[in-house]
């Protein structure tokens, strides 16, 4: 789990920020779920800084990044979802998130 990488952990977001999960190539490995790609959510919590799973799994010395809990509305994830109050949360490292354009928020 430890890394010799000496970078300052990337941390672009704070609790309450609106973000979108990036939809990038997932060839060979990813821990970003298909269901979340391209979906908008809200930063719910800042967890820890650590290596990103895609690097750690191949034992490469990658960068340390902030990991966040992002909260989604279930009705944004699933077209048929019937209950408007329900939510889903999951965890993403900084590189998989992009800020939402405020004018579109």
């Amino acid at each position, binding site marked *: 789990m430890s890394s010799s990488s000496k970078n300052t952990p990337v941390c672009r977001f704070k609790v309450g920020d609106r973000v979108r999960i990036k939809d990038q190539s997932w060839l060979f490995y990813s821990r970003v779920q298909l269901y979340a790609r391209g979906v908008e959510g809200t930063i719910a919590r800042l967890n820890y800084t650590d290596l990103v799973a895609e690097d750690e799994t191949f034992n490469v010395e990658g960068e340390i990044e902030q*990991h966040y809990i992002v909260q989604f509305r279930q009705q944004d*994830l699933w077209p048929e979802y019937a209950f408007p109050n329900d939510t889903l949360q999951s965890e993403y490292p900084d590189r998989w998130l992009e800020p939402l354009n405020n004018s579109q928020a």
Partner: protein
Amino acid sequence: MTTATGGHDHGHIHPPAPQVEEISDYSVLEIALRELAIEHGLFTAEEHLHFTEWAEKIGPASGSRLVAKAWLDPEFKKLCLTDANAASKAVGVDWLDPTGAGTPSDYTHFVVLEDTPTLHHVIVCTLCSCYPRPMLGNSPYWYRSTNYRRRLVRWPRPVLSEFGLIVPPEVEVRVEDSNQKCRFMVMPMRPEGTDGWTEDQLAEIVTRDCMIGVASPKPGRTADKHPIHKARHPVGHEPKPMGVAE
């Protein structure tokens, strides 16, 4: 006893061929890998034993006690929600055990999710089966199944109803998909009818399923009822190799 045709005299009766139970391919592979790992110095038998001892002692009782304590003590509840690793120590769980740096699979980022009258949590790991082992022991087999992992994120209310739990529509059902290094546990609401209960009495109704979020604690509900698929060779009952006494 000499035979009529003059065949050789055994003088004794052959014992029957030993009854060897079928050993699984996985058991053979595990033994092979463990012996090779020790031969090649990847770990020692003592280290393996040390981890085994830890694995055999973890279980949901710690979690039950954590919830019961939190129900009785608002300050402790606050600690559970702000520093769950520290709160764990109060029930004898050190997230750095048994290696001094935590377990390879469970890490050291424990988070307790608090249910409220308007919020019900339920936990899944859609990608594998991440579970807060130091606090709850090993996960139930159904939690690891593709079936649960496919369905819970998208159809949480139907899945919960299969467990016998119906959540009112105005209560928010929040699915926590633990897909990275955080490890989660649900702190359910304290039910009606438990006024004046001791910590032991309260812990008894906080079962493992309540801390995953697929059940709610109730007075009198002291077990998670599921059918049990028995093991062929449960822990401690593996057949011995030839020539080794039982």
